[in-house]
């Protein structure tokens, strides 16, 4: 049957796009809030612009297999450029738009980028800063012409120029695009994403059309997504999660992606669009919840009472109702009332009224946080995956949500646990290779074709995967007991007052911790108690704040007692850092993961003080401000001892 033949042929993104243009050409493919309204592109419109872009690139001398770097916020034309590059058999290479010039340099050189597509003047300036070091750079295109009038360099072009050129080219060579698309193959690399890499230089992860299409199809079928979904695309385009959800899945199903107007208006744009399918890292959900709680504090007493009453009803039965589990009639009635008075309106102001499926991934999510969203009726689920696996390994099936697991292996994915506890995965979604790094590729994929995730985990009785830590981070205390720092840090970070935590203990006799407080939550807490403070450093040093954090850590200690092999990892001593850990100071990765080794080295004095039994320690640290200036922050940090719990009680019980 011809139909089967054509659907079989839908194995690269350009073919998917052309197919959408054919069968749902007038349906909205992309929207962007611009000039006050949601500007729309239909699938046909997208296909036309992609054609113009691709032909323009061809005219400019683009060659099959070349990498095109794409830098900017989520904009329709940025996504279109990706497909345009793919049409010609090239590889789009999205970069983090907030990366500083020096960070971009490595990738641009490594990937031998000749063509660069950036959003605006800001990004152009960054590239111009590096111009000397990029001898291979041929053409730089920009999307937003604002402020670009005086850039006279001949290699800088408005993307509209490129498209104009492309249209002309298309008239002269109308078959070029079809030929190029036909020349593409599913095992071609469709995208290259650089992993930030907690150690060493970033590596380019090459992922094929096939890998991403499989991953996207798997997810789509798993959650029964249709072409009617709306998704808000606001996460960095260089992140694998955005690529899977906003690009690959949209391309597979034909649903609509929506780009917000600006960073300041994301919340408002979210409310307007009301996505049906939503994806965000835990930190976003966390911030939202904190906002909800802070804003509710200002509400009248009656409203607060009502809110808390119905939230308790939701905690009791909300998640169960969502999972269609049996719930008493009275609770159902109360929940329905709560839905009218609290949950429904709350979802409306959060922009989540229409959400059918929401996912979070990228870091562990606190059980309370997770429960909150599920209990008010938002079908929030976790997934597990990495850049190397197209963010696709495990998914939580509807109705089988466990707060401490990441779900079951996704369709088509094989997962097994190695002897050392490391999670190994195999399937069509695996990377093809690391760009120009056969050594790293060989290291990551074992002889059986399994990718070594580097995470330690275990399956529970029902086949749900539970992640404990990075495999290489799992160490041993001096007494031989297992030490999983991330596991403990995540427990700490589940407290709203703790922004970041770094724990130490590998090959040491006890566990100690650095804490970053959350300036918003703690600041609010302090204001309500009338504690005046001048800034982060000052607030962090307040004895009251120390007390607050101490309580939280001791609670974690109490929980750890029940975690079997991790009971010895209770935290004995801690201090609150005088500055916030910051990607600009290299203490965090761009995805806000702690660079443990770097931090340990940078703050060696503090670690010595923790383990040396001192009560306080002076430290002075260089910092980079947002505008690029350098400065110093100095403080005398207090160190506190903590209560730990024996395992005797548990044994007695």
């Amino acid at each position: 049957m011809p139909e089967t033949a054509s659907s079989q042929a839908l194995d690269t993104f350009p073919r998917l796009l052309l197919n959408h243009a054919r069968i749902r050409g007038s349906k909205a493919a992309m929207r962007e809030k611009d000039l006050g309204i949601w500007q729309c592109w239909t699938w046909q419109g997208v296909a036309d612009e992609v054609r113009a872009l691709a032909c323009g690139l061809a005219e400019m001398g683009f060659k099959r297999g070349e990498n095109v770097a794409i830098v900017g916020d989520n904009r329709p034309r940025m996504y279109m450029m990706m497909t345009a590059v793919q049409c010609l058999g090239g590889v789009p290479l999205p970069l983090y738009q907030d990366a500083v010039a020096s960070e971009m340099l490595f990738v641009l050189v490594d990937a031998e980028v000749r063509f660069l597509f950036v959003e605006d003047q800001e990004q152009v300036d960054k590239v111009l800063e590096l111009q000397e070091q990029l001898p291979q750079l041929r053409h730089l295109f920009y999307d937003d012409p604002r402020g670009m009038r005086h850039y006279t360099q001949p290699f800088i072009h408005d993307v509209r120029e490129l498209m104009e050129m492309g249209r002309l080219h298309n008239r002269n060579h109308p078959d070029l695009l079809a030929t190029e698309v036909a020349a593409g193959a599913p095992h071609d690399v469709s995208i290259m994403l650089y992993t930030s890499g907690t150690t060493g230089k970033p590596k380019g992860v090459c992922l094929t059309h096939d890998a991403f299409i499989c991953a996207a199809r798997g997810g789509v079928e798993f959650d029964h997504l249709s072409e009617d979904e709306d998704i808000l695309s606001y996460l960095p385009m260089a992140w694998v999660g955005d690529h899977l959800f906003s690009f690959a899945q949209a391309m597979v199903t034909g649903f609509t992606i929506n780009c917000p107007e600006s960073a300041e208006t994301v919340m408002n744009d979210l409310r307007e669009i009301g996505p049906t399918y939503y994806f965000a890292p835990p930190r976003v959900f966390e911030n939202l919840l904190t906002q909800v709680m802070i804003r509710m504090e200002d509400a009248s007493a009656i409203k607060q009472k009502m809110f808390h009453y119905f939230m308790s009803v939701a905690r009791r039965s909300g998640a169960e109702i969502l999972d269609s589990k049996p719930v008493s009639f009275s609770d159902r009635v109360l929940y329905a009332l709560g839905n009218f008075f609290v949950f429904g309106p709350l979802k409306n102001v959060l922009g989540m009224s229409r959400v059918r499926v929401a996912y979070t991934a990228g870091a562990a999510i606190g059980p309370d946080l997770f429960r909150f969203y599920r209990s008010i009726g938002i079908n929030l689920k976790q997934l597990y995956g990495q850049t190397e696996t197209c963010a696709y390994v495990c998914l939580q099936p509807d109705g089988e949500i466990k707060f401490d697991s990441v779900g079951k292996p996704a369709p088509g994915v094989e997962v097994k646990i190695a002897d050392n506890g490391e999670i190994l995965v195999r399937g069509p979604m695996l990377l093809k290779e690391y760009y120009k790094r056969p050594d790293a590729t060989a290291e990551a994929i074992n002889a059986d074709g399994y990718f070594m995730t580097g995470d330690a985990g275990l399956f529970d009785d029902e086949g749900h995967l539970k992640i404990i830590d990075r495999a290489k981070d799992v160490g041993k205390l001096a007494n031989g007991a297992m030490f999983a720092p991330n596991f403990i840090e995540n427990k700490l970070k589940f407290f709203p007052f703790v922004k970041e935590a770094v724990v130490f203990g590998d090959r040491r006799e006890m566990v100690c911790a650095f804490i970053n407080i959350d300036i918003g939550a703690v600041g609010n807490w302090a204001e309500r108690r009338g504690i005046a403070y001048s800034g982060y450093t000052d607030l962090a040093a307040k004895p009251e704040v120390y007390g607050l954090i101490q309580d939280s850590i001791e609670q974690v200690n109490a929980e750890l007692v029940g975690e079997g092999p991790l009971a010895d990892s209770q935290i004995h001593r801690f201090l609150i850092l005088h500055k916030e850990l910051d990607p600009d100071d290299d203490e965090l990765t761009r995805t806000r993961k702690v660079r443990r080794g770097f931090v340990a080295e940078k703050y060696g004095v503090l670690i010595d003080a923790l383990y040396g039994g001192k009560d306080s320690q002076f430290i002075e640290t260089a910092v980079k401000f947002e505008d690029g200036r350098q400065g110093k922050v100095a403080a005398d940090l207090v160190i506190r001892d903590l209560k730990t719990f024996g395992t005797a009680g548990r044994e007695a019980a």
Partner: protein
Amino acid sequence: MLYRENGQFKTSYAADQQIFPIAQDRWAIIGILVFAFVAVPLLVDEYLFRAILIPFLILSLAALGVNILVGYCGQITLGAGAFMAIGAYAAYNFHIRIEGMPLLVSLLLGGFTTAVVGIFFGIPSLRVRGLYLAVATLAAQFFTDWVFLRIPWFTDNSSSGSVSVSNLHVMGWQINNPVSKYLFCLGFLTIFALLAKNMTRSAIGRQWMAIRDMDVAAEVIGIRPLFAKLSAFAVSSFFIGTAGALWGFVHLASWEPAAFSVDRSFQLLFMVIIGGLGSIMGSFFGAAFIVILPIALNQILPVVGDLTGIEISTAGISHAELIIFGGLIVFFLIKEPHGIARLWSTGKEKLRLWPFPH
């Protein structure tokens, strides 16, 4: 609380600039209109039509007119009653002096005549502002009072000074019972309210508001105060005049100049201030408040008297009404100087943000 705005995104300026951009509001207004046009005629008795609904509709229309001038353009008027009178007498004269004049045309010509006179009395607004202007508009009030009382031509030389119209019909539809009168006025009000809303959201409305908020800045961006103010006077007078014609023709059927005294002017000004200056919705709220309050007091006071055992005479009740009416007005001005419309919009805002307080 009732709002679910997710997914109501706008993909064109036309959608973004519609009168009710939120779907829930659109449904509510459709519901209200259906209720007013269909359910009310079936449910309500004659007394309610006569005593409350018809006066409410006509005075709402007049209040809309006053609000355009006072609320949108910032020109205080104390002569609204006079403009109602002009509308009523002009329509009357067109109606009786021109054979076979259709009712609708008479009413609208009443409005147009008022608009012309309104422009004339608006001329002082080009020179004087604020309270000076308020007093200048009183001049219009007293002058027209006198004209219709003393110049017999306007009242068709009627010996008693009172005029009357009868046998009203529009294209074969007899407007002779309370329901038909109600529907006739409701139709007028609906259309005029739509026109008023359109004007206030267009260039002309912005000109009025610019003059109101900061006249020097308005001039600097090329708004001519002459045109803005006189157009506000004209439109406002047109509305008030038409309302006056309806008041005379439909509500009263026979009337004398006292029906449009300075008290009527004050009453209309009360409506827009209590309802909310610069708000179409406020005009309705204000009219409802002012129409219903005296009737409610009239009903409630004797009951209160009975309950407390105090014998209240009819005169006593009317005095108490005055006191309570005045007191409530002062109370309202103190508690919510921006009027009921402000309460309404904060309430709506709260509902949209619910459960958050702000």
